């Protein structure tokens, strides 16, 4: 099958190469979060029996200097492919065959037919790894020693035709300017041909907005396609959101009546739609897991986007493929032409944004403001709590020495915060050991993980004596102020790494941290106010616990009947498999802060 594709590409006068790679097994590597995995170490873990072969065609720009290239990616399962897979290859082939003939090309075109038998992402990532960071020497030596140096390529070679430029050496074409991943799926769209855009790469990184704008503009205004981005469908049907949208619409209408220049009213349907899209965009970014093969490109600073075509139902059934090919082909050609004509690559600072619809976005300058407002109470409250406790104590004793001692009360709290965070770091490393234990079911894994965590925590308490003997009157307040500052620092750091995660985290953590108050004191006081605060505290602490939050969110979105305990483990596993910083956030910031809040809540005296 690869040979057929390669022959077709070669007949167009383009260069063809094969790339063989071994898929990697998902392993927990604690040190690989922000760096690309070292290719040398990856080689040892390959599974020799299964390998995949990518086909790469390169059309050289006739008059270009070959410094830059545009990449087209078509995932294709060579083992069992259906009609739609074939259609996506056909679509890209038609575009590629056009591009081999045109004279306006200034950048080379690389067409990667990615063998998706072991995942679309991994095949593209394997190709990119070979393209950007090839390993000389050691790799193939290890390759031949561990796996038997198979003659896969010889089977592919067509010996009879000499003139074909099919070789197994890796072909390259300059610096990549942009990449498009092209897929065709059947979503049974009833009315129009639609185009779905996927852009989120790992850790919430986005391609330059201009690329999305080009695709959107050309698709809507030139080809009349219906462009979509992902939405949270459960939000669209939510009653409360509809009501909210109607209120907003009403306010907008009133405002316009007051002053015709005030135009902030949005139609209710549009508002609901935008909110659903925004929530999905935020969720995908917060997860830190790429939404498609385009995510692999972002690791190498290449802007990439996945275009998922889904044709009309009747056009597919009535065999009107040609119309679809023309429409999709024109769109891809237009996008390539736009990128090709650019002298510089996309560079203005539109990398930080959230999409609310294919044509609208929320920029960083706007979405940072709510986050900043959410986070600023933390240091203020911490400072006020600290000064208050100091003053309370100084009221009682005016001895100079005791004031001096009091000024160090924070040390104990800080020590505690530090230790709990250390515990969090250890918890984050525990799955590495669990992976080697070889426990099979996710639920068991989760149980082992939580057991070990608790055990670890108890050990900490025993050895280092987290509970200090003489707890002052306002010990909890100092602890709370230390927790608040730790949360503040953690959230600010995370907002730099992945804003969406920090936003979600802030939504959960900030109310909990601000409201938290010892249970005992509330019980002693026993007023209505105290009681409501107690209830509030308990609810927030419950929501703040990561597994609980996960299950609640999942239940709210998918319904509670489908919840399985192991789901959380599976989710966490997917996080570290994709090197998501969200995992680090959960274990090293969220969980310790939650535990500290629990400490405050259960504070005696």
């Amino acid at each position, binding site marked *: 099958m690869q040979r057929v594709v390669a022959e077709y590409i070669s007949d167009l006068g383009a260069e063809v190469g094969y790339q063989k790679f071994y898929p990697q097994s998902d392993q927990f590597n604690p040190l690989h979060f922000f760096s690309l995995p070292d290719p040398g170490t990856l080689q040892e873990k390959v599974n020799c029996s299964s390998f995949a072969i990518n086909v790469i065609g390169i059309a050289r720009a006739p008059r*270009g*200097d*070959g410094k830059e290239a545009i990449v087209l990616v078509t995932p294709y399962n060579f083992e069992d492919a259906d009609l739609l897979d074939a259609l996506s290859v056909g679509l890209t082939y038609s575009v590629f065959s056009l591009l081999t003939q045109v004279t306006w090309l200034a950048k080379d075109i690389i067409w990667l037919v990615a063998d998706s038998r072991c995942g679309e992402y991994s095949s593209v990532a394997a190709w990119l790894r070979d393209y950007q960071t090839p390993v000389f*020497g*050691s790799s193939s030596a290890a390759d031949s020693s561990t796996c038997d140096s198979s003659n896969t390529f010889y089977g592919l070679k067509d010996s009879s035709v000499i003139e074909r430029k099919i070789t197994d050496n890796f072909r390259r074409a300059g610096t990549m300017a942009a990449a498009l991943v092209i897929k065709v799926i059947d979503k049974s769209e009833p009315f129009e041909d639609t185009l779905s855009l996927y852009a989120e790469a790992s850790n919430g990184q986005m391609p330059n907005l201009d690329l999305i704008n080009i695709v959107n503009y050309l698709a809507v205004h030139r080809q009349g396609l219906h462009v979509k981005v992902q939405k949270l469908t459960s939000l669209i049907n939510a009653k409360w959101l509809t009501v909210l949208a109607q209120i907003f619409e009403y306010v907008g209408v009133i405002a316009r009546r007051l002053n015709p220049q005030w135009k902030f009213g949005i139609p209710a349907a549009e508002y609901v739609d935008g909110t659903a899209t925004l929530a999905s965009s935020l969720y995908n970014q917060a997860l830190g897991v790429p939404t498609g093969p385009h995510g692999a490109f972002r690791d190498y600073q290449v802007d990439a986007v996945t275009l998922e075509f889904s044709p009309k139902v009747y056009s597919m059934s009535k065999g009107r493929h040609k119309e679809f090919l023309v429409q999709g082909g024109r769109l891809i050609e237009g996008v390539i032409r736009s990128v090709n004509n650019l002298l510089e*690559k996309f560079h203005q600072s539109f990398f930080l944004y959230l999409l609310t619809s294919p044509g609208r976005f929320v920029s960083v300058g706007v979405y940072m403001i709510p986050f900043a407002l959410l986070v600023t109470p933390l240091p203020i409250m911490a400072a006020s709590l600290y000064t208050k406790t100091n003053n309370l104590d100084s009221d009682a004793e005016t001895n100079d020495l005791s004031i001096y001692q009091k000024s160090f009360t924070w040390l104990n709290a800080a020590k505690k915060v530090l230790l709990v965070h250390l515990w969090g770091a250890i918890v984050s490393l525990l799955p590495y050991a669990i992976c080697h234990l070889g426990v099979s079911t996710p639920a068991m894994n989760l149980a082992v993980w939580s057991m070990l965590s608790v055990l670890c925590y108890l050990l900490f308490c025993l050895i280092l004596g987290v509970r200090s003997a003489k707890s002052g009157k306002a010990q909890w307040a100092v602890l709370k102020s230390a927790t608040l500052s730790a949360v503040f620092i953690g959230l600010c750091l995370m907002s730099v790494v992945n804003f969406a995660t920090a936003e979600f985290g802030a939504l959960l953590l900030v109310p909990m941290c601000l409201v938290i108050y010892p249970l005992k004191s509330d019980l002693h006081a026993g007023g209505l106010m105290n009681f409501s605060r107690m209830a509030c505290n308990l609810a927030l602490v419950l929501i703040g616990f990561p597994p609980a939050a996960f299950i609640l969110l999942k239940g709210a979105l998918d319904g509670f009947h489908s919840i399985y305990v192991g789901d959380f483990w599976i989710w966490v596993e997917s996080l570290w498999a994709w090197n998501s910083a969200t995992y680090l956030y959960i274990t090293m910031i969220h969980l310790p802060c939650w535990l500290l809040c629990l400490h405050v809540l259960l504070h005696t005296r």
Partner: protein
Amino acid sequence: MELLRRPIFSLLLLLSLPISFPSISLGSAVQGEDGHREEEFTEELLLKPLPDRKVLAHFHFENTAQRTQSYGRHHHLFPKAISQLVKKFAVREMELSFTQGRWNYESWGGFDPISSSNAKPPGVELWATFDVPPDQVDASWKNLTHSLSGLFCASINFLESSATYSAPEWAFQPASGNLRYGTLPREAVCTENLTPWLKLLPCRDKAGISSLMDRPSIYRGFYHSQRLRLRPAKIIADGADSGIVLEQTLTVVLQPNGFRTKSSHSSENKIPPTWAMSSLLGRKIEGRCVLAKSSNVYLQLERGLVAELNALKENQEFVGTTVLNDDLIENPAFEISVKPDWVLKEVGNLPTGSSSLMYGYSIGKSTDSGPFDLHLTWKSPMVWSCPRPPLHASRFLMGSGNERGAIAISLRSTGLNEGLYGSNKDKESCVLPVNVFQVVPWYIKVYFHTIKVFIDEQRKAVPDVIEKIRVSPSEDKVLPGVMEMVLKLPCGVKSAAMTLEFDKGFLHIDEYPPDANQGFDIPSAIITFPNVEAAMHFNQFSSSDKSPLLSRFREKNPVQSYTEVLLVPLTTPDFSMPYNVITITCTVFALYFGSLLNVLRKRASEEERLLRAKGRSSPLSRLLAKLRRKKEVEPQSSTTSSSLFSSKLVVKIILVAAIAICWQYFG
């Protein structure tokens, strides 16, 4: 006496000019009064079908001038601009090339003289050697770049800066310290560069072979390289001052029309497209340039093609249809419209066994029978391969991110070196030397100690592989990094790779070019195979004896190939940053001076007294007080101060909001 004689002499010359003029226009070469050759001009065109169905057209114009005193500063045919340049800057040798597109070493060949000396890197490449003392070489180079820049309407003057040119010593060409080399990979090439180049020809593009240069069809090609080469003339009979030879070549790779008319997946596709000179170049040769000594057109058939034709011929003979000549003019594969005036066959030790053929046409004769046009009609499918260099060189960047990276040069065997060496020598002692010459701009900070060499995927110690190396490290904003090295590879090498790590430097804001976000170029590296010579000897024929093109072919130059130009993305600042900085600075200053004035204006003691009178304050104001490092003394009862404070604040906020609303409403 000297002073007196000179004006008289020039006066005589002036007088004799009208008399000698008709003789110039009639005679092919100008005969001096003392009988020996003075100036010569020849024009030649070589056409060659390429394996990937394209056609190579190589124009070769050569202008020779003996350096004599007979005409003083004047010449008959030799362009004055060039001769002045040569005299003024004491240029011994020079080569200037303008190139668009890339030479495809895999399918257009890399082993024959044309590809080895005419395949150039994209953009402008200039090198020159000077006949001046070593300390004046740089000054001469700078002046030369400026003069050439004016002469060819190109930004060659950017090569003046010492950060752009280098002085290779042995890896590029053997030179004794007075060679300078510089490239501009981003220079765009167009007709504005061709016109001044054509002006140097005696007939311009009005007559002769140069009249074929129809601009649209030339620039429609896949590769376009115009070259100007100055060489000292070698033929010195009486040991006098050697003359100078100006060699102007234009190499174009063209796509014959009608390529896509046939269906593209069947076997018919393998029939190379039929072409004619008029369809290829858009014009016909109307007649020779009368000033030219010789005016020839050649059609070259490559070794691979000749071998295929011979095989085909043997098949045909086996069937017994026709008996063919050795010169293959009549063969079953193609048909030529004009019978060649002579046929040349390659002689010498040939690696592949078959020799290439050259059909020659003299333009002088064909003018009598109308304009000259050559048709090549293919009749049967033909697939052949071209002579490739022993190792195919490619270069690429490794790594990601804006901090560091690596340059890798990979050499892959094309299977030819076994034929070259495998037969006559044993494999252990056989060594294939490869020269690598690479210039790296200063902002790519290459660490030369990180050289790693891999041969056949095995890492080798550097001293084992590198025979000789010369490195001149870059100096910020002054000198580029230059690396010259000789690799000795075993003859049976399958692949070799060399990596060099680098850090990306930072430029000053005004050093960025206007298109900084495209990235920065690393000029092509030059890979030379000193032991492999790209020479073609053709059997002697009376007229070919004097053909400069064929004598160029006969020269024993080492095979040379250029690697790709690389594009390195560097960290670029946001160029709107200065504006942002200005606004932020202004805001900070405004805040600072505002608060300073506020503090200076306030009476601290009075405020304290006020506070004491008002008693305990809110936690926020206490915090503020603490920040001001003032101990609050005895906070007493009454909460009026805090409410007063907050009510004041609220009033202020409401005032500001009201103003804003008014502004919005009425503005």
